[in-house]
């Protein structure tokens, strides 16, 4: 029923002054961050991550209100919402709308639910981060009672879009529990109408024809690990009794045939043995029909926290070589992308946020992801589960059998984690022009530096992301060949 407009209520239109030419009285600054970058220029980013490169003299002129109005730089800064003139508030309206869009995931709350059906695993990866157990130790399996509580918790999340990801251990070792969760979730969802996606993260060595049929019939996505060609993969990911590469490749092909190329993805983990062969690793992905790769640095948990780890500088050299090789594949007509780069590019070049857990402010702990371990323990991220397996339960939120959803997501611990990981209040991050693209990663900082916030001048996470992001901006702005390829990854 419409409400009649009271007499004298103003019309819904802007006053005439809003459409007049800019005032001759100068301009007002809009909020932005800036810092010098390795090329000697200054990078400026505004509150929603739109960016521009300036020389220092222009930056100083801008901030001290000495920039000539309607010069090319002035017009560019105005069009990208770094300054404001005239009576119109369109820029503020647009900035507010874009800011809301960037942070849309916050309002929907937890979208990613990671389930560990078992901690058992049949692989002996040199970098295992989850402290997996041998295949016969069934006491590390999730029970039906806990699985049913997992499903209850997943539906307590208000998010319309839910992703249920099965991790391990090797989840195929407890396939009946995986099936139970898939089927109960799907059954309940016939009334609840959420958008649900299931992902099985598996080493693929135990895949059977019956499992493939189930995966196809229940529309599951599959994510596997492939570290490169046979010699490297078998070095990094040996089976407990025999090499795994041949089996993995055979099963990748069978799955691609059964459910389609786009529903099977893979990621690699960089070991010391990988560092000098990025081209071979990428070529192996191309050979198997993949059109993307996720280059993953070692995480400092479990066996990966070994003396055989490498420095972030070594990994950045590996990444740089890999990206260069991928760009050349694209120059030669093959559409292939690096996924971490693509995530950052989406944050830099589109108005949208991403759900990628490591690059969120506040951190996605609990509010973006919840992890349900085999024993019912609930963690705010996969890394905090890995840390607990090493004996440090600092991030443990509760247990499915003893605690309610409300007790877990409203716990003082989780609220404090979210509050303390807003980069806007973190030393150095608060001034950093990359803040709009970056994230907090408090578990890694806690593990490596003993502090949730961390000491940014010595943070490896900070060094890694600064070098990647500054490098990408350089390619976009100054490399006519790379720029269109990077835009094609959006």
């Amino acid at each position, binding site marked *: 029923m419409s409400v009649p407009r009271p007499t004298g209520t103003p019309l*819904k239109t*802007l006053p005439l002054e809003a459409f007049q030419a800019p005032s001759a009285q100068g301009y007002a600054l809009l*909020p932005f961050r800036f810092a010098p970058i390795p090329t000697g220029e200054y990078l400026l980013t505004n509150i929603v991550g739109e960016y521009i490169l300036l020389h220092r003299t222009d930056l100083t002129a801008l*901030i001290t209100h000495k920039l000539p109005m309607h010069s090319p730089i002035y017009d560019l800064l105005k069009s990208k919402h770094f300054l404001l003139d005239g009576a119109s508030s369109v820029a503020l309206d647009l900035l507010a709308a874009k800011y*809301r869009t960037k942070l849309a995931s916050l309002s929907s709350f937890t979208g990613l639910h990671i389930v560990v059906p078992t901690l058992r695993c049949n692989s002996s990866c040199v970098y295992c981060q989850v402290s997996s157990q041998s295949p016969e130790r069934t006491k590390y399996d999730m029970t039906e009672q806990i699985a049913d509580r997992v499903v209850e918790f997943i539906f307590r999340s208000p998010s319309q879009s839910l992703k249920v990801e099965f991790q391990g251990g090797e989840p195929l070792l407890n396939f009946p529990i995986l099936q139970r969760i898939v089927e109960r979730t799907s059954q309940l969802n016939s009334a609840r109408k959420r958008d649900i996606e299931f992902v099985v993260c598996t080493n693929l060595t135990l895949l059977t024809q019956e499992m493939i049929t189930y995966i196809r019939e229940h529309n599951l996505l599959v994510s596997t690990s492939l570290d490169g060609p046979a010699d490297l993969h078998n070095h990094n990911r040996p089976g407990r009794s025999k090499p795994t590469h041949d089996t993995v490749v055979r099963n990748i092909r069978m799955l691609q045939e059964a459910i389609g190329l786009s529903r099977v993805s893979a990621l690699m983990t960089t070991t010391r043995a990988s560092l000098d062969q990025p081209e071979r690793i990428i070529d192996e992905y191309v050979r198997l029909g993949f059109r993307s790769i996720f280059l993953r640095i070692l995480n400092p948990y479990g066996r990966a926290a070994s003396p055989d780890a490498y420095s972030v500088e070594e990994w950045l050299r590996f990444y740089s070589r890999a990206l260069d090789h991928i760009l050349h594949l694209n120059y030669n007509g093959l559409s292939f992308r690096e996924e971490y780069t693509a995530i950052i590019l989406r944050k830099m070049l589109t108005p949208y946020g991403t759900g990628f857990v490591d690059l969120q402010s506040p951190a996605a702990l609990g509010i973006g992801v919840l992890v349900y371990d085999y024993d019912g323990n609930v963690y705010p991220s996969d890394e905090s589960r890995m840390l607990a397996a090493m004996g440090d339960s600092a991030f443990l939120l509760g247990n499915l059998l003893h605690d309610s959803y409300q007790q877990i997501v409203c716990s003082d611990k989780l609220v404090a984690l979210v509050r303390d990981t807003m980069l806007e209040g973190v*030393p150095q991050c608060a001034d950093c022009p990359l803040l709009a693209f970056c994230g907090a990663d408090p578990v890694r900082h806690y593990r490596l530096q003993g502090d949730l916030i961390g000491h940014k001048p010595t943070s490896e996470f900070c060094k890694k992301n600064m070098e990647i992001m500054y490098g990408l901006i350089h390619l976009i702005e100054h490399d006519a060949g790379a720029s269109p390829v990077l835009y094609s990854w959006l």
Partner: protein
Amino acid sequence: MEASANTSCSARFDVRVHSLSAIKKAAYKFTHAFSVRFETVDQDHVIVRFLPLQAPTAPLDLLDAFHNEVLDQDLREHLAEETKGIRDLIIAQAFSPISLLHPELETEQGERAQAYRNTLENAPT
């Protein structure tokens, strides 16, 4: 500005020219390689002393970089002061169900929006 080869170096600042908070923020960025000490000279002057944590470095390069960073921090303070109110307004608008920028266009809740906007604009900085 003082530097001794391969050891420590220091810079003297007049806090009437550069704010102490700008100098401190600039110094924080160098704590990956230096232990940084502040010494008060008098009411208006401080000395910032850099002690290398590991390998010796080129002290004059460091001091040039530090001075540039202090100037950048000065600019950031200037910028933050000018844009604080408008930043708060943009963020409040982003999560508001009604228009705070054009309360006059809100036929039913305009008064509430205007009151909220007034609160933001008059909030102590």
